[in-house]
């Protein structure tokens, strides 16, 4: 039996008003996404993206993934968006918010995106039989522990993602070095 699955409902605490919160958070996320791609002002787009990121973190909490939700808030909303806001303020060209916002071939882009959406919808309707009816309830209390077991390994063996974890740290190091070198005035 997979230790990740907890057959008790909610792990001892019943979830409350799931439908209401799903529609609220999902609606907020999509509204935020719409605002990101349509706002003229880049700071408004950044603030809408923060709303989207926080709603998606809430959706993670509803999917019994508290650790991913915490990482999302710390890294995405608290780190990456601060970086975006800094850069927006550094490159704030006054004329950019008065120029044309959408490029010349925007109808083609819109058609391509709608085709993609139609593809997704047809995949969902045709493949509905693939999804099992029962929504499994993951054990929320030991979520961090189990993710740590997968990342770091347990009982002396390497976990399935230990190597990927080390490579990810190398990736971050390379990104730090790249960002520092690219923004230096004299290399």
């Amino acid at each position, binding site marked *: 039996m997979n230790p990740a699955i907890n057959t008790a409902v909610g792990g001892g605490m019943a979830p409350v008003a799931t439908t209401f919160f799903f529609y609220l958070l999902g609606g907020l996320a999509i509204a935020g996404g719409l605002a990101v791609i349509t706002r003229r002002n880049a700071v408004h787009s950044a603030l809408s993206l923060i709303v989207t990121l926080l709603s998606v973190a809430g959706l993670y909490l509803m999917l019994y993934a508290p650790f991913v939700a915490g990482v999302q808030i710390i890294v995405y909303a608290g780190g990456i968006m601060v970086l975006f806001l800094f850069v927006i303020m550094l490159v704030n060209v006054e004329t950019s918010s008065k120029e044309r916002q959408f490029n010349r071939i925007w109808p083609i882009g819109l058609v391509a995106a709608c085709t993609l959406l139609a593809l997704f919808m047809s995949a969902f309707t045709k493949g509905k039989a693939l999804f099992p009816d029962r*929504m499994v309830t993951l054990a929320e209390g030991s979520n961090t522990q189990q993710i740590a077991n997968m990342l770091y390994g347990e009982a002396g063996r390497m976990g399935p993602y230990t190597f990927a974890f080390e490579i990810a740290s190398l990736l971050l190091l390379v990104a730090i070095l790249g960002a520092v070198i690219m923004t230096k005035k004299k290399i």
Partner: protein
Amino acid sequence: MAPITTLHYLVVAAALFVLGVIGVLTRRNVVIVLMSIELILNAVNLNLVAFSRMWGNLHGQVFAIFIIVDAAAEAAAGLGILIAFFRNKETINVDEIDLLKW
């Protein structure tokens, strides 16, 4: 109302993905294009975590954590490129970043 199934989360993720694709394809401001890329990555993450719950193991969540780490690195690198380019050409329009065009 019907109980919330995995399909509901997948639909939200698909909507976010398509919104991100529209942003990447149609906007002229480079920072907003980068933010649309972040939207795409978030849609993929939501997909992964929803499937992780469906199957009952945590592989999806661990993969989502790696994608968040990757998005941080990519945002840093992308914004660094943007700042370096802005120093040269004083513009943040995608249309005008065409120095290598024939």
